[in-house]
């Protein structure tokens, strides 16, 4: 049976299973690291941090909810989101998101991929993880009309853009 996130310990977080019994405050008492995993517990991401960033729990919750979508979830033959892409997306987020970063919208794609996106401060940022091609990003600053596209492995650029919308 699918489960939602739950705290593994006070400084670990497992994306696949049960919500924490207490609020996230329990997770933020003295955490020095947190763990994000998908369904396979041996695939964990450990990130050392002085505090559990506010974006983590809602993002994992959103990711868990798209993991629960079955085949044909969109009525157009949409495929289940790939666990590998979820791991990749989380891995990239942990490298580009500052502690105060806004929570991304997590959008499943019909091909089994996923997309993370923000639309705020007159800017659009989308990081796209297609099922079968290299992840990319798109950034647009609406006021100036400046648009940038690139590969999602360009962490420096992505971190700058996330910083700009934070």
């Amino acid at each position, binding site marked *: 049976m699918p489960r939602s996130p739950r705290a593994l310990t006070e400084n670990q977080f497992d994306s696949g299973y049960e919500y924490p019994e207490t609020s996230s405050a329990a997770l933020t008492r003295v955490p020095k690291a947190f763990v994000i995993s998908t369904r396979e517990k041996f695939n964990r991401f450990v990130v050392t941090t002085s505090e559990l960033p506010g974006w983590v729990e809602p993002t994992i919750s959103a990711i868990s*909810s798209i993991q629960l*979508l079955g085949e044909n979830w*969109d009525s*157009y033959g949409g495929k289940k989101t790939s666990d590998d892409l979820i791991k990749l997306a989380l891995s990239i987020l942990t490298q580009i998101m500052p502690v105060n970063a806004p929570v991304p*919208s997590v959008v499943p*794609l019909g091909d089994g991929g996923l997309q993370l996106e923000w639309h*705020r*401060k007159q800017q659009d940022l989308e990081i796209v993880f297609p099922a079968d091609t290299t992840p990319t990003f798109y950034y647009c600053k609406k006021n100036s009309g400046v648009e940038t596209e690139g590969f999602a492995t360009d962490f420096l650029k992505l971190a700058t853009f996330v910083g700009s919308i934070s």
Partner: protein
Amino acid sequence: MTLTIYQDDKSIRDDDTLFRRVHLKQIVKDEDTGLARVSSGAFKDKDLSVNIKSVLDGIGLGPEACITNRLNQKLVSLTAGEARRLNQAVCRNPLPENPSHGLVYGSKNARSILNGLTAAVNWVIPAKAPCYQDIEVEKRANGI
């Protein structure tokens, strides 16, 4: 593997409306307005399924027929002309259970096309962009 290439069907007029269902999970928040917007992720299929309004009209059905019994779906539209201006072919692809089924066919990899499609769509059900908060409430109520 069979590769199907669809041709543009000129019998579908430019002003004909094409309906597309959008799953609640593909509706995101515009934090500057607080309104819901459809993610570009909803329009990435090379052969994007739609329902053709003129065919629905011909069998006496309204747009609501596109989302009957589909709890987690909303409905948006664009015109065939708008799709064509974005280098897409528009064609009929009737299915036994859905005679109004059609396709907006073509690569949507270029950002200009994806942005164009996203900008071109209008809300149908509901009739205008809802507050994102309402979408969130619906997601929670539906357990997604």
